[in-house]
């Protein structure tokens, strides 16, 4: 899913060790399911290979990996693009939407504008479903309804989140 982008986004705040990235990831995006260390380091390895992060020299100490990772301009560009693009309007998107909102707030981006864009994207898909319901078979209509109910749930979440953006921003910046 968005693990590489979430880690990149966390790195855009400041250069960090893998351990700190894992801790922050688990705090904000893990929701009870911790990211395994192995996945953190393999993801960072791939990001380094692709030129999106650089790994500093190993520092003396315990632990498996004492490298400090820093984001590159290429990595920053990818975060920027990812945060300003709406997610395609499909059901079951909550985690991606949430990740984008939290990262946008962390990095001082315009999270409200992102949510507006996401709402417009969802509503466009709702219009397509409405069209299918008007012209399609009963089976098409019922499937469209299923999709619409899920998009409606996302849209409600978008509204509620937008209304609480200030409080969420405080929370994200405090910690």
């Amino acid at each position, binding site marked *: 899913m968005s693990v590489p982008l979430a880690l990149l986004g966390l790195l855009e705040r400041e250069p960090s060790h893998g351990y700190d990235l894992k801790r922050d990831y688990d705090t904000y995006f893990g929701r009870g399911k911790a990211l395994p260390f192995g996945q953190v380091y393999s993801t960072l390895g791939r990001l380094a290979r692709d030129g999106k992060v650089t790994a500093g020299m190993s520092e003396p100490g315990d632990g498996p990996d004492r490298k400090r990772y820093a984001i590159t301009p290429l990595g920053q560009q990818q975060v920027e693009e990812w945060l300003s693009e709406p997610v395609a309007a499909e059901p079951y998107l909550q985690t991606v939407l949430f990740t984008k909102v939290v990262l946008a707030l962390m990095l001082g981006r315009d999270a409200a504008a992102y949510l507006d864009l996401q709402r*417009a994207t969802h509503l466009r898909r709702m219009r397509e*479903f409405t069209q299918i319901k008007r012209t399609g078979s009963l089976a098409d209509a019922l499937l469209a309804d299923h999709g619409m109910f899920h998009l*409606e749930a996302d849209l409600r979440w978008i509204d509620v989140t937008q209304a609480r953006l200030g409080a969420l921003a405080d929370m994200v910046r405090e910690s």
Partner: protein
Amino acid sequence: MIIEARRLSRSYGNTLALREADLAVEAGEILAVMGPSGSGKSTLLHCLAGIFTPDSGEVWFGGRRLDTMSDARRTKLRRTAFGFVFQFGQLVPELTVADNVALPLLLGRVRRKEAYARAAGWLERLGLGELGGRRTGQLSGGQAQRVAIARALVLGPRVLFADEPTGALDSLTGEHVMELLVGLAREEGTTVIVVTHDARVAAFADREVIVRDGQVTNPFAGQAVR
């Protein structure tokens, strides 16, 4: 552009309900107005329809300035060029369905026989042909809204203003009402501006604008691509 609002502001006492809101609506367009409760949607709709005058800013309708028109001319324009559907309470409960729909025609001095014939035609189009003799106090919510739509369209308005027209209906009935409203508006070429919280209702529109803190956040979004 059939309706255009420029930098509209309107307050109630200390509450600034609209702050320099802009909006432009093309003729024949179906526009949904969304946004949080208390953001100013109804106030905006009332200003566009000439029911309220804004404290500042301009409202244009078909090349004419609405907000500076005399009350008499504005009232006349509202009666003939605009139709209205609200959440509830617009029908006269003691009158029959046919009376309610014929009423705007009778007030416009159309002859009785013709008024009732035209009303019957509209009731037919809304699937209410059987109910002409029923008192509107005895209708279901969905039926009452269909009568309200017939009454709003009977004079052939250029613009139909609707504020939460399905707000009191369950979602299936609401969808049916919207389908009729939008279907008839498209057949007649009527512009529709509908305020709604409901994404399913908004999905019937060509585009949506969002009102937040008294401003339209995306007044022209999606317009050029039509």
